[in-house]
């Protein structure tokens, strides 16, 4: 991608130099050639020329349309995440980047990825807007409270690359950065298997699933009051009142925080909101868990989830309805 962005960039540099030099040269040439030689000099007025006006409207217009189309095609490539990308969850907070590899490793302000592997980031923030920016990969995407945003890149050369927060986020904004380490596959494997003895993200999610008593309604044997979550992730869900939605990260997140927004067909809207009860990081743990019990252990998720609508705008904004704290509809099982 860096090559494609730079090709366009240098095209624009060339256009800029051409027009700047043209204008400067004409100004200087005219200024010298037509310098005032006598105070009695009053040049003949010239009204203008329709032909010239047309020329310098049409040429810039055509050039700008080239820039527009070219820029748009690069942009779509930048924002449409490829299939079969390695997916990593990112939680931004003042003033650090937390990275969660789905199979265990967790890191802060440092992201290890294998070389020549497309990497897709699914990003959330605990507080204000941040922006994930790796200049070497020409990738930048805001991380916006209340929704998931995505970004993707591919490191084509092993090395350490600057990671910055590009959206001003408060006191230590300039310290909210780190490195992306692009590693040879063997080194990456060694790194992945070494170190951490912590529970995997999905396992943390499973524990949370129990602690929040989600399992009392979402039972695996289809006898619960909520939909079965096994095999759900990445599938298309039919909603009550018609319509469908893909069970991706954004949908699961919305269903936890604002359960009445999109109720699955055949179920009552009885689930309470968990807004304010779970952090963005915990939400991602829950999602990782649901994903891990998805079709064929997340493989489908890796290829299918949100792959078609990677555009950040297609991720629905959260909590459009006021936070209600339903007490009457709260399932009894919620109270131990």
């Amino acid at each position, binding site marked *: 991608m860096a090559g494609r962005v730079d090709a366009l960039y240098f095209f624009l540099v060339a256009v800029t130099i051409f027009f700047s030099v043209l204008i400067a040269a004409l100004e200087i040439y005219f200024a010298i050639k037509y310098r005032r030689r006598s105070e009695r000099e009053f*040049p003949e007025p010239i009204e203008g020329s329709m032909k010239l006006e047309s020329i310098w*409207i049409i040429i810039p*217009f055509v050039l*700008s349309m080239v820039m527009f189309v070219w820029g748009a095609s690069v942009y779509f490539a930048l924002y449409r995440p490829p299939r079969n990308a390695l997916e990593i969850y990112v939680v931004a907070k003042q003033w650090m980047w937390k990275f969660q590899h789905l199979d265990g490793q967790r890191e802060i302000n440092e992201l290890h990825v294998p070389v020549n592997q497309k990497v897709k980031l699914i990003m959330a923030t605990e507080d204000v807007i941040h922006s994930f920016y790796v200049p070497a990969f020409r990738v930048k995407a805001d991380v916006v409270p*209340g929704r998931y945003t995505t970004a993707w890149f591919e490191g084509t050369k092993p090395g350490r690359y600057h990671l910055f927060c590009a959206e001003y986020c408060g006191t230590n904004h300039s310290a909210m950065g780190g490195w992306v380490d692009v590693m040879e596959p063997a080194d990456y494997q060694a790194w992945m298997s070494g170190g951490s003895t912590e529970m995997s993200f999905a396992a943390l999610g499973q524990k949370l699933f129990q602690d929040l008593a989600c399992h009392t309604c979402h039972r695996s044997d289809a006898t619960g009051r909520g939909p079965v979550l096994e095999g759900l992730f990445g599938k298309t869900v039919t909603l009550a009142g018609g319509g469908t939605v893909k069970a991706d990260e954004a949908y699961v997140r919305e269903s936890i925080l604002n359960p009445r927004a999109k109720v699955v067909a055949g179920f009552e809207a009885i689930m309470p909101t968990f807004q304010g009860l779970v952090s963005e990081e915990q939400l991602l743990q829950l999602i990782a868990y649901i994903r891990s019990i998805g079709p064929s252990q997340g493989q489908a998720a890796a290829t299918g989830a949100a792959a078609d609508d990677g555009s950040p705008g297609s991720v629905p904004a959260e909590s459009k309805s006021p936070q209600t704290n339903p007490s009457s509809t709260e399932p009894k099982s919620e109270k131990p």
Partner: protein
Amino acid sequence: MSTVTLPVERSKNYLNVDYGVKSWLLTTDHKRIALLYLASITFFFFIGGAFAVLIRLELVTPPGDLVSSETYNKLFTMHGIVMIFFFLIPSVPAVLGNFLVPLMVGARDLAFPKLNLASWYIYNLGALFTIYAIVSGGVDTGWTFYTPYSSSYANTHVIAAALGIFVAGFSSILTGLNFIVTIHTMRAPGMTWFRLPLFIWAHYATSLIMILGTPVLAITILLVAFERLFHIGLFDPAYGGDPVLFQHLFWFYSHPAVYIMILPSMGVVSELIAAFTRKNIFGYKFVAFSSVAIAVFGFLVWGHHMFVSSQSVYAGLIFSLLSYAVAIPSAVKVFNWTATLYRSSVSYQTPMLYAFGFIGLFTIGGLTGLFLASLGIDVHVTDTYFVVAHFHYIMVGGAIMGYLGGLHYWWPKITGRLYPEFWSKIAALIIFVGFNLTFFPQFILGYLGMPRRYHAYPEEFQVLNVMSSAGASILGLGYLIPMVYLIWSMRYGPKAGSNPWPATGLEWQTASPPPTDNFLETPVVTWDAYEFTPENQRTAMVEQRM
């Protein structure tokens, strides 16, 4: 020059008609109000400049070692707020526009002289809030006030700063209203729309933006204050709001605000080029309508500030397309100014040097805007120093160059005195060199990936930052020199005749400084803008020899 000067009674003009503080603070003369504004905005220019000095000093070295992060964040925030809302937006319109709109259309004053005075007081009320925000500890949200940082997280004086901007906005609404009504209803006999100086067209277009855009900013900034105070859920998802909504509302005003700052300077440049080439502006109607086109299209491009904000990619597509549309009228202006020089009679007096500087720097500023309008490149360079360099080329290289050029050009009219030509040329040169050394390296810094608003930065960016800081010290010096000789000239400068350059506008057909009512008798216009009729050629030459 005649050697025998008879002792004549000093003619009364707007400056000596009355003395005393009260005669200034209660004046309804648009020329005096322009000078009140001049004093206020010059004060804020040096305040904002002082913040910039500290920013550039901090950035000489990579670690954040001169001031703390909190302080640094307040410095760039206050630099932005002061320079944009209290210097650039009022600069050309409230000083030069206030002074010149009635003179140029041949009117005795603006349509609503009392509202005009009220606008200055409102500006100062807003300024008081801002000064309070500064001295009580500052504000650190960035001039953009992005939510939810500004509404829920920042613990600095956000509300005072927001109120300052809210209040000051009304002064620009009143100024815009006054200009529109004046231009519509108070033109002298014969002053048809297409005989108006392009300065007036530019101010007309600017006034439209002021009236239509400023209320949106006022409402938005007030909503941020409300969310901060009462937690109404508008922008913070924690209360059920949407942070991107704020960005839409904010840029709906703040992108057109860029044109509030640059259009009046474009108007100034048209006047300067016409005067110092003794030529009518090539393609007058194209230049006139390009101002209106910029004002209209300017309202439709705000989303190009949000290409990485998680806005829909399809919205991004439309905003990118429209952003290119707004580039065309700007290009049309530059080409027409250049063509005006053809077969003209170019004189290199100081205001013309500023006009040349404006064209060169605005061209670079405008063309680098195309990078940011291009979706694919914007992703990489947005929120980096590339953006900082780009908008300083427009705001400082464009708007301030135009303002200084205009201030020099009309200085003899405003004060009745000439400034020293040698020093003014030196200053113009120093400003041009200092400006480029300050901001050109920032384009490269941005392309290399240095984010903006960084208190500390990686070491590989140091060389370019040192160049930028060195340039800033030259630029700062360049701005101090006119301050000295302009003030000096008010007392010691040679007296200026009514039309020292000479130029063709109505403002040059009355005394310098003009009488309180501008014209001794209502002018009747029988010539086109910038037309040197045989008669005004003759009077211009007589004036020259005096």
